[in-house]
């Protein structure tokens, strides 16, 4: 089985690609929202908006990697994979990355992208929404730069 790129399934109605589409669309929506909020953050300032950028940015990667996982799993196994994603992987980016590495044809982040993944995984968690922490715009920018790089890597083709 060859690794599927996210652009392979295009706009056509591929029923078996439903989860791929669902996660990819979610990722794209979070990406657009995070970029919009980032554009509204004042330079050299700390803000809750910058924290929201990071909060949304993490979901970009979570949804994207889940799209990659489904795109590279046989459709007949999607139902089982969906349960695994929901009950075992959840929001855990480390488990998600490991799961990609354990595919029949393993998908591994290149070393540079691995470093960006580490940056994202260390700064992002779903509890950010409760902490009320004000992040600095530059940190949010750096976080989104890392997100952008991983998005490009996934969209250009996982090989």
């Amino acid at each position, binding site marked *: 089985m060859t690794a599927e790129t996210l652009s392979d399934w295009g706009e056509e109605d591929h029923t078996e690609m439903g989860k791929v589409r669902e996660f990819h669309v979610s990722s794209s929506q979070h990406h657009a929202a995070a970029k919009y909020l980032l554009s509204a953050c004042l330079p050299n300032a700390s803000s809750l908006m910058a924290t929201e950028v990071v909060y949304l940015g993490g979901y970009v990667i979570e949804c994207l990697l889940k799209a990659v996982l489904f795109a590279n799993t046989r459709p007949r196994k999607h139902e089982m994979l969906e349960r695994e994603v929901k009950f075992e992987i959840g929001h855990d980016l480390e*488990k998600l990355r*490991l799961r990609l590495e354990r595919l029949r044809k393993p998908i591994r982040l290149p070393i540079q992208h691995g470093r960006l993944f580490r940056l994202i995984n260390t700064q992002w968690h779903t509890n950010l929404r409760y902490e009320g922490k004000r992040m600095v715009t530059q*940190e949010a920018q750096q976080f989104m730069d890392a997100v952008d790089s991983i998005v490009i890597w996934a969209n250009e083709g996982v090989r």
Partner: protein
Amino acid sequence: MTKTKNPAAGKVQTKATRTIYKRFKEKFPDLPDEVEEVVYQYLPGAIRVRIIHPSFAGKSFGERELLVADVLTALGEEIEGRITLLILMTPEEAKKQSRHMSRVFDDPTGERL
């Protein structure tokens, strides 16, 4: 060893984690003597590191990473590439119980909700 899709998460020490501890201990001699306070293998291929040190005060995440870049480089790409969580915090930040990532580090079996 059987290869499973979802190996159990935990705090495991390996040759790689011991190497990481040794390197960071050389740079930060006042790190705890308990290895798992600093580094452990969360999952196969996923190592977590937490360095608590006052030298990180007033620095951004990127600047903190630069402070430990020499250690990461010395580890080599194979080991460095397995570090999936790198918490670099000051003692004051570590005291704040609201620091979720520190709790995630302390309890790898807990939910990341």
